[in-house]
């Protein structure tokens, strides 16, 4: 089966899935509907401050699995929905950022800097249009890069990397993530260390479940959903609620801004924006391709680079960055959107999640089964069909369809989402708390799962209080099992060589890079930034 055959099969899988209904004689497959539904949900969720894409993915997952079951047929509809949410949320997050100075999603924070001033000047609609255009462009760009690169990367890995190298690569990823995310290398390391430790409770080769102190409830280890959702979502909710409570004294007043003047996006505008979009898209894609770094960093970098460029080249009467420059919106939105596509490169080709959304895709794949992200997916078998590869191409197709939706109806829907801000946060968040816990229970059916999640939630809250980023924790938790497995196998396969990480040149290189990146970031922070 050649590459082209697989691509066709992937496209077919999406379009010819179980038919939901017929429209004008064309059968609309369930996957297509799911992508659309996910996309709209994503925009709505992204536009609601307090909710984020991952939350929606978390809550939707058990519902989706219940509808579609555990067979491999369920993969494309479920993951199509999640991909839709992923893309919808990235443009949805810009809406409240622009309209109300509150980012709907964390990576939309930079968008508030120029988006809100534009609203204050009566240019809200235009700002939204700019955000949409930049977002959609960035997204499409990175998807194309993803589709081209992922298979190659996977094959490259397969061909050249043996078990010790794979282990070293995982160590490098973890070190990289620890060093780069969050404020400092030290905090990142602590986060990572905790995540690994949590992953190793209750697991292990021996018959006695390790680190459980004899508790039977822990003998299965912590389900991924509890750790991930607990730290990321419950922890965030706890922090948010505390912040709300503290700010209750000085309540914010919502100002009404009227749109005035020219709201359309002109060709000239587009031409001016394109270089910023392009630059940011490349930055975002590059950053996204590296596991662990997420859209927030990309948005920041895109903004910073754009700002430097803009300061040199701007027209004298145009506002500066931070005062309502459309280019500012374009720079950040393009960057944070292009991360979403590129983020799937390490996920699909190596099985290493780069950000929260990728985490949920892996969660879905693990829950449903039949698709194990990693190099084995991209094996182009000669005679028999590799079903995982078909699924992978189906996913690519789904992404392109979502992009299509983004370009067409995305903007429209986005602008109508201003209404989502009206739900008071303090009512919404407890509801989301219960919803998340119920969703976890639906998957795990043990009360302990709820306790675990709350425990992780408290951990996430404390981490945020001392400004340790929870993301390395989550990623380390996910990769912990893989790391141990791969290390064990490498050790056994090399016949018990204790220096197996260093005897191979490539592995040794990875290890050196891992150490290097930690030391380099640590030293940089020592000086005043």
């Amino acid at each position, binding site marked *: 089966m050649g590459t082209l055959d697989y691509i066709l099969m992937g496209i077919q899988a999406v379009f010819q899935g179980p038919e939901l209904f017929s429209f004008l004689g064309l059968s609309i497959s369930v996957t297509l509907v799911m992508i659309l539904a996910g996309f709209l949900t994503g925009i709505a969720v992204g536009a609601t401050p307090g909710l984020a894409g991952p939350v929606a993915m978390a809550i939707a997952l058990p519902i989706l699995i219940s509808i579609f079951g555990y067979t491999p047929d369920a993969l494309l509809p479920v993951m199509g929905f999640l991909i839709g949410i992923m893309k919808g949320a990235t443009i949805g997050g810009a809406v409240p950022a622009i309209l109300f100075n509150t980012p709907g999603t964390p990576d939309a924070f930079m968008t508030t800097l120029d988006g809100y001033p534009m609203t204050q000047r009566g240019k809200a609609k235009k700002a939204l249009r700019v955000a949409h255009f930049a977002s959609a462009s960035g997204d499409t760009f990175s998807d194309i890069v993803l589709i081209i690169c992922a298979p190659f990367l996977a094959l490259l890995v397969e061909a050249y990397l043996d078990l010790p190298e794979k282990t070293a690569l995982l160590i490098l990823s973890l070190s990289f993530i620890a060093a780069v995310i969050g404020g400092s290398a030290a905090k990142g390391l602590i986060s990572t260390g905790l995540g690994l430790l949590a992953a190793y409770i209750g697991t292990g*080769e021996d018959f006695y479940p390790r680190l459980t102190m004899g508790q039977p409830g822990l*003998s*299965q280890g912590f389900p991924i959903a509890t750790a991930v959702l607990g730290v990321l979502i419950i922890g965030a909710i706890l922090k948010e609620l505390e912040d709300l409570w503290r700010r209750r004294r000085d309540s914010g007043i919502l100002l009404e801004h009227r749109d005035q003047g020219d709201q359309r996006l002109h060709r000239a505008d587009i031409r001016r924006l394109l270089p910023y979009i392009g630059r940011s898209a490349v930055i975002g894609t590059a950053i996204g391709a590296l596991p662990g770094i997420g859209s927030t960093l990309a948005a920041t970098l895109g903004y910073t680079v754009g700002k430097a460029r803009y300061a040199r080249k701007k027209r004298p009467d145009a506002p500066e960055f931070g005062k309502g420059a459309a280019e500012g919106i374009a720079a950040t939105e393009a960057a944070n959107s292009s991360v979403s596509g590129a983020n799937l490169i390490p996920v699909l080709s190596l099985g290493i999640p780069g950000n929260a959304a990728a985490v949920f895709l892996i969660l879905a794949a*693990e829950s*449903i089964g039949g698709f194990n992200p990693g190099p084995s997916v991209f094996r182009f078998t000669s005679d028999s069909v590799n079903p995982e590869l078909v699924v992978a191409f189906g996913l690519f197709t789904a992404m392109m369809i979502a992009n299509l939706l983004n370009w067409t109806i995305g903007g429209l829907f986005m602008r109508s989402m201003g209404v989502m801000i009206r739900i008071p946060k303090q009512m919404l968040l407890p509801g989301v708390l219960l919803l998340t816990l119920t969703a976890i229970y639906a998957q795990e059916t043990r009360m302990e799962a709820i306790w675990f999640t709350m425990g992780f939630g408290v951990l996430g809250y404390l981490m945020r209080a001392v400004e340790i980023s929870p993301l390395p924790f989550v990623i380390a938790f996910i990769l912990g099992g893989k790391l141990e497995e791969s290390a064990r*196998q490498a050790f056994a*396969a090399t016949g018990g060589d204790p220096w197996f990480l260093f005897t191979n040149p490539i592995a040794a290189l990875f290890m050196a890079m891992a150490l290097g990146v930690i030391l380099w970031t640590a030293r940089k922070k020592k000086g005043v930034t």
Partner: protein
Amino acid sequence: MKKIFKAGIAALSVAVMATSSMAADWTPPGPIKLMIGFKAGGGADTQARLIAEELEARLGWKFIPEQVTGKGGLNLANALKDQPNDGTAIGLVVTETLGYNMAAANAGMTPKDFTGLTTTAGFQMGVVARTDKGWKTFDDMIAAAKGGQEIRFGAMSPKLADLAYLLGKAQGVEFNIVSVKGGKGVMNGVNAGDLDVGFMAGIQAKGVAAGDLVNLASALSEPLVQSPVAPTFGDLGVEFTADGYFVFVGPAGMPDDAREALSQAIIAVVSDEGTKAGGLINKAFGGETTISGDDLTKLMASDYANAETLLVAASE
């Protein structure tokens, strides 16, 4: 004498019929918790859920499936043995759980803590390698090993690792035994070149048919259906086998009518190729193997006893 004999037989048949008819009338006093010892979405998990689905459709019994994985099925065993034994809690594991794993774990459980209901299917466990390695028979691989080549042998459970070790010992070579997660893990490893050879419990079927993989040996007491020429472990000098089945069990002390009813119901479903469960088993395992009742109890006990011997043999 004959009279007593006849009366005895009559009494026995009455008893048997009574049990069966009691079984036919038995209904679960509440929803049945179905513990599944396998990962969600996998073939074994699907098997359990399909069987439950079919029974719900046929008999109206309500099942509540629950994943209890880990420690080779021992987590499930631990959780199951304390459940009520009125037929409202059962679990699906493999016989290895109640045999080798229980013996090795020393966790205070024996097969006597459980009531065997029925097996559903057996595994076509083979020793598999990629064809492009150039080995056509098992002896080819041994020759390569003896010639100094390091052979990486993938095994997905401690029992299989022990068996691989004994196989090597019997043949006079030493394998690098690599413990991998699940049969899929072995297949991926073999395909990727990370492993030279490994155990596969049936997923090699497609590959062997296509010519990409080759069954070098059968790890069962009988030859493999797909490759009858490949030698068995007995032929190769190993006195243990990897015989195993999926098995439904309940806590010890289950009343006979509940046990009968559950076993017969499950057997009926898996033997019927028309059902989704039966069809799956047919496709994946070449048909059902149902051992139940006293035969199953005996099998579980002998497995456990053999496991002790295996553990001793492998530690030398």
